């Protein structure tokens, strides 16, 4: 049914999702200081956002889309040369979103508002504080090794699902490989060098943290600017089933608090239900409907997301 989409449909879905995502009340909740989401909670919010318009996805396609998003974001967070670059990655995301709605001034304004809030909240954090945020995010992504075709093809991911970490390229700091030694008067008395297999160069300039500007960093820019097939692979998932199983069994008080938080968060999301006369359509991320159904049935247990069903009202 993908070929029945028109450009008008695409625009509509894009605008609806972006309007919902940048809703003022929703953003207010997001900006409150809080703990890292559980995987269940994030997946639930993601589901809601994906269904904010007339587009629908079945479980299998939804799982695949979510897998793709988490692995892409894991890659971006992991490879940031400096912890503060996670903010530049977010700005790259927002720049791309603004481009999608460049001809809708109302929505554009909402996104700019969020942009300003991000700058206000995060620009003054120290490198150490950004590293703590990054380390916390990396806990969320731990043990996720789903293989993504586009990453495998570009050789940024190995066949075991782990990302390639380059040992050449620009360094964030001026790092010539020198050892300098000083005497008690502070004079440099000795200087030596050492070699490694790495091949580092100094970067040209720092990216911009303003509302508009060249971010320099490529992480967080559109992976699909050249169109390519999208696939994720389920086999070769994490061997650490024990640790994942523990995470899914939440004691009662934990679950209740999380549900309350989610209800508040989703309460800020104005979801449009397709009316009787509107034609919604279904997005299938697999090549055929049968393939999609098969994927749903054969998804490994340890990779199921157990979405929480919440009928959130104001």
């Amino acid at each position, binding site marked *: 049914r993908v070929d029945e989409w028109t450009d008008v449909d695409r625009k509509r879905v894009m605008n609806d999702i972006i309007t919902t995502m940048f809703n003022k009340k929703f953003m207010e909740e997001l900006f409150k200081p809080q703990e890292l989401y559980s995987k269940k909670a994030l997946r639930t919010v993601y589901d809601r956002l994906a269904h904010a318009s007339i587009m629908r996805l079945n479980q299998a396609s939804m799982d695949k889309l979510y897998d793709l998003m988490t692995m892409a974001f894991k890659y971006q967070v992991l490879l940031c040369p400096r912890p503060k670059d996670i903010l530049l990655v977010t700005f790259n995301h927002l720049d791309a979103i603004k481009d999608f709605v460049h001809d809708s001034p109302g929505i554009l304004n909402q996104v700019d508002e969020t942009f300003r809030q991000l700058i206000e909240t995060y620009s003054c954090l120290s490198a150490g504080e950004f590293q703590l945020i990054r380390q916390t995010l990396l806990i969320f992504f731990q043990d996720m090794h789903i293989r993504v075709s586009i990453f495998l093809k570009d050789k940024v991911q190995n066949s075991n699902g782990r990302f390639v970490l380059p040992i050449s390229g620009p360094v964030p700091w001026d790092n010539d490989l020198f050892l300098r030694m000083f005497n008690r008067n*502070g004079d440099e008395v000795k200087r030596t060098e050492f070699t490694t297999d790495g091949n580092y160069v100094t970067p040209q300039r720092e990216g911009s943290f303003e509302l508009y500007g060249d971010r320099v960093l490529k992480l967080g820019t559109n992976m699909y600017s050249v169109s390519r097939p999208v696939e994720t692979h389920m086999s070769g998932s994490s061997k*650490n089933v024990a640790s994942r199983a523990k995470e899914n069994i939440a004691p009662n008080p934990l679950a209740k608090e999380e549900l309350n938080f989610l209800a508040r968060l989703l309460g800020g999301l104005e979801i449009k239900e397709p009316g009787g006369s509107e034609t919604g359509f279904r997005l299938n991320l697999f090549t055929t409907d049968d393939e999609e159904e098969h994927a749903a049935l054969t998804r490994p247990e340890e990779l199921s997301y157990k979405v929480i069903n919440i009928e959130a009202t104001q």
Partner: protein
Amino acid sequence: MAAADTEMYRKEKSLQLRSSSAALYNNLSVLRRPGRPLACCCAVHGPGLSLVSADADGTGFSHRQLQAKEGSMALSASLLTQAAWCVLPSRVLLVLTSQKGIQMYESDGSIMVYWHALDVTEHPPAQAVFARGIAAAGGRFICVGTSSGLVLVFDIPPKGTNITVSEVLEQHHDAITDIAAELGQAPDGAGDLVTADDAGTLCVWSTGEEFALLIKIPAFGCTCSSVKLWNGIVAAGYGNGQIRLYEAATGLLSAEVNAHARWIYALDVAPQTGKLLSGAEDSFVHVWKLSRDPDTGDVEIEHCHAECVTDTQVCGARFCDPEGNSFAVTGYDLSEIFRYSRA
């Protein structure tokens, strides 16, 4: 003039962990047991800790998992920030720090002997709360840091559970990252404990009934994520990949090394030889040699060996023996401990 590797280490068989390692500073602790060929190792997974130790007859390995204690208001699962064995003359304790507090166990992790809950009200609102930075000090104390910059000094009796807070050190204004006690012989007048924080400030202390601040080394704009103290030399690893050496007695900078291309996560010192180990997010582990010029007494450092742990952001690195002939490494998201020894 560039020097090539002066020493060779070769990769040994890895030790398997039951869970993967989290991206946390100093995320590997090794306990050497006299008379046993292999050590015990532990690494933080996130909400839990993975322990592995070689069996007494050397034929197999035992595994144990410990969890972060939730605290009385179990609103969310707590995360561990660090774990380390603290070796005191009378006993060895395994200390775990988390977002909720400090847990102390017998060295094999079998029994928890003490729990200290962090006072949330002491911390500014909307700031992360956690304990981090662990070291045995002065033959009698265990020092633990907090996210508000406090260092708690616990008085540890030779046995039993009657552990008390003997002092709270208040010199840091940023979250403590690491604490280290003198591993060799402190020169006269030099302190025997160093504490480091997120801003990069270092404090050198003398330990005892009352701890005294001797030297404060100001930050230069980078987080100090790992610190070691050996023969009066402070070795500090920073977020910009630099290692700096300072004289503990005076606080003066002795050496500056552009060691890594990314954030340093771990340092260790082999006390018998002065070998220094550094591990960072750039996938590299380096072995260096610390020494003092016999005439001037100036601190010297030379590079011995570079090891690239492919596709790994190193989060923990420790020597496995006091001479530094072997070392172990952990990496983010990996369920193994890499091992290397002198060829």
